[in-house]
């Protein structure tokens, strides 16, 4: 291989050269095209399809005209005024709202899911099996199916405790946390079971209480799954739309998903440049987080559905 590389100065040709030696075809012979070359064609076409919308939104965000038509000629003009204008809009307020809601929900989800998984994994109590089965059944029904009832219940609660009624950030977080246990307990439960029970028992013999074992031993050992659950919860909450749109009403309280939807669907003013700039800024942290932690996220996604 290394010897062949000398004769093939361009990187990426070495293997094809080996191919040529074996089959005595040209460097880009028919055989190469039918076996390997077409895969690159498919790949390049797909990459273009994947990347063009993303380039489009970046270009639109940099286009000073801020209109639909102006955005169509990719990177014809470049300026940062859309980004500057974001500071005069509600964008950063929405950004903070989304961030606060998603972070709080993620932390709450990790703590509550972790505690529940600990209980199911380490204690044997009557009703344990029934509770697990119930959770399994509940997690089949996404919370958003009950969006109308959630709205009506919050209306009722709002008469009593306004900070937990409709149009309240706290109420929205509470609703999200209500759905947290059903979705994540199983994912965590499986992982908690892989931590050997002997570790707890050793700690117990040394005199540690159950809370000490939970906070100082178990939670540290399962930190990878905590990270995955926290991340999935963050990304999920960040993009959640229907419940946020139903619960939140005043323009200052909206999340990014609801606020940017309003911009993008505003056909009269069509603040397209503003929307694009906002979309790019909102996407950057999520994309970076995703690419960095790809391995864990993908593992977590599949772990939930296949037991074992």
């Amino acid at each position: 291989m290394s010897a062949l590389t000398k004769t093939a100065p361009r990187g990426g040709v070495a293997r094809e050269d080996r191919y040529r030696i074996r089959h005595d075809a040209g460097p880009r012979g028919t055989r190469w095209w039918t076996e390997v070359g077409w895969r690159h064609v498919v790949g390049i076409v797909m990459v273009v399809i994947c990347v063009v919308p993303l380039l489009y939104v970046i270009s639109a965000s940099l286009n000073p005209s801020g209109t639909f038509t102006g955005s169509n000629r990719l990177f014809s003009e470049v300026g940062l005024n859309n980004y500057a204008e974001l500071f005069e809009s509600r964008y950063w307020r929405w950004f903070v709202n989304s961030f606060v809601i998603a972070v709080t929900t993620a932390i709450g989800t990790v703590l509550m899911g972790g505690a529940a998984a600990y209980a199911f994994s380490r204690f044997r109590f009557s009703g344990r099996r029934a509770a697990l089965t119930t959770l399994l059944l509940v997690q089949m029904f996404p919370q958003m199916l009950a969006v109308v009832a959630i709205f009506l219940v919050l209306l009722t609660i709002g008469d009593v405790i306004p900070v937990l009624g409709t149009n309240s950030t706290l109420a929205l977080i509470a609703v999200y946390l209500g759905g947290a246990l059903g979705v994540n307990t199983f994912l965590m439960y499986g992982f908690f079971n892989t931590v050997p029970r002997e570790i707890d028992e050793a700690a117990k013999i040394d005199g540690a209480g159950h809370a000490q074992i939970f906070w100082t031993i178990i939670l540290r050992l399962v930190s990878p799954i905590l990270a995955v659950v926290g991340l999935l919860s963050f990304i999920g909450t960040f993009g959640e739309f229907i419940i946020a749109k139903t619960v939140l009403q005043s323009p200052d309280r909206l999340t990014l998903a609801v606020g940017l939807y309003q911009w993008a669907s505003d056909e009269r003013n069509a603040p397209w440049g503003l929307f694009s700039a906002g979309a790019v800024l909102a996407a950057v942290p999520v994309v970076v987080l995703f690419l960095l932690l790809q391995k864990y996220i993908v593992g977590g996604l599949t772990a939930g559905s296949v037991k074992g």
Partner: protein
Amino acid sequence: MTEVSLGGPVGTRDRRGSDSHARRTGPGWYVKIVLMAAVNALGLYGVWTAVVVGSWGVATFLALAVAAADWVYFSRRMLPAKYLYPGLVLLLAFQLFVMLYTAYVAFTNYGDGHNSTKEDAVAAISAQNERRVEGSETFPLTVVERDGELGFAILRDGEVVVGDADTPLEPASGSDDGARVTAVDGWTTLEFAELVSRSAEITELRVPFSDDPADGGLRTQDGSLGFVAAPVLVYDAATDAFTNVSTGVTYTPDDHGSFVSADGEALTPGWRVGVGFENFTAIFTEDRLAGPFFQVLVWTFVFAGLSVVTTFALGLFLAMVFNDPRVKGRKVYRSLLILPYAFPAFLATLVWRGMLNEKFGWINEVLLGGAEIPWLTDPWLAKFSVLAVNLWLGFPYMFLVTTGALQSIPGDVLESARVDGASRWRSIRSIVLPLLMVSTAPLLISAFAFNFNNFALIYMLTGGGPHFEGAPVLVGHTDILISMVYSVAFDSGVKQYGLASAVSLLIFVIVGVISWLGFRRTRTLEEL
């Protein structure tokens, strides 16, 4: 938190008895006491407010929740419950209860015009149907204000009385010039300029004349002369009916939560009552509703099914394409191909919405050289666009999943197939696909369930449109069941929570059946 030694001193002397912390006094104990004090204080405050407002359901739930918290955290037993309690309370309130509540609302006529109780409806009808009692006396009236709320003050039998929209006229201390009130303690009297600037508010204001709704309310046209407006419709609790005092027509309650006259005229508002299966029969049999509903139902299945099939097919195809070690730069391809998955889906959907815009979108104007193809407004093209955008959003996930599954298929199986003379297609069909299905089938089921309720995609891309003409609710060719629920409940002009919940309940049933079929396959239930 983890730094705090919650268990108190570690030693054998504490091991007598149980693991409970009730008797220990480490830092964790203080944290617990403070937290529990806060929970009790807030909880009891909530119970008290709920009782004051008369919201018995909330009061009961909070009282039970606080009692349960005290029991769980101060008992020396109940170890598992200490860990389950916070999650379970929220789960009960915002997942289980709302599901049950959906089922309840589905059997009522809850919605605009039927929002509240019968008492509220009686009060509202009495107040809204008023006019000046002919020949009745007028009162020189003073407009006053307290905390931004407007009120009226008059002299009744020589005595100063004051009231606002919520409180009937009652005696107050103040001063008068013999004909008119000049000042009321605790209220500020409005100046002429304010009377002019707030005239709309003033002519709207109605102050109940006394505790008895039949006495009518004090109103004014000009802010200086008040008159008593008496109800045209008078409610008689004994016969449970409204009578129109000028025409003599009586309105009696029907079983749909409205007062209705003999010739069918209904008074608004009505109130919330159970209507049995009427919402469901309306969905299935009422011509104008059933037609759109079935179209939405079919499209929901088609959309979810085709979304899974197309994303899986493309993802698998690409996984096979790049599963060949001879392809250089596979890592680069892979990280670029999962970009659509890393980009937040709601943002990507909105970007596509812009790109597919009929007049100014990039696809029409640049890619197709100025064509005006109605991507999102033609019934069939909108369906196609929804599927295409969902394919763009969804194939990277399938690509990742199938790549993993392909790599776990042992090479020697494929090799032996090749030795036995199987063609490439044959070994894909008979070896790769069946092995792949074992590990990906559960994911395909959950992908189906996800797309079945993919509200954000539909709502953000097409808003469900183009809309069906003549349907009593705002639904369209690309609406799926969940977006129909949202539209019926919030977007269709008249809010029909009952009908929307009925559709929700149908989704619950469908999702339940699908999941049950899925579980039967994977037998997850047996391995708890």
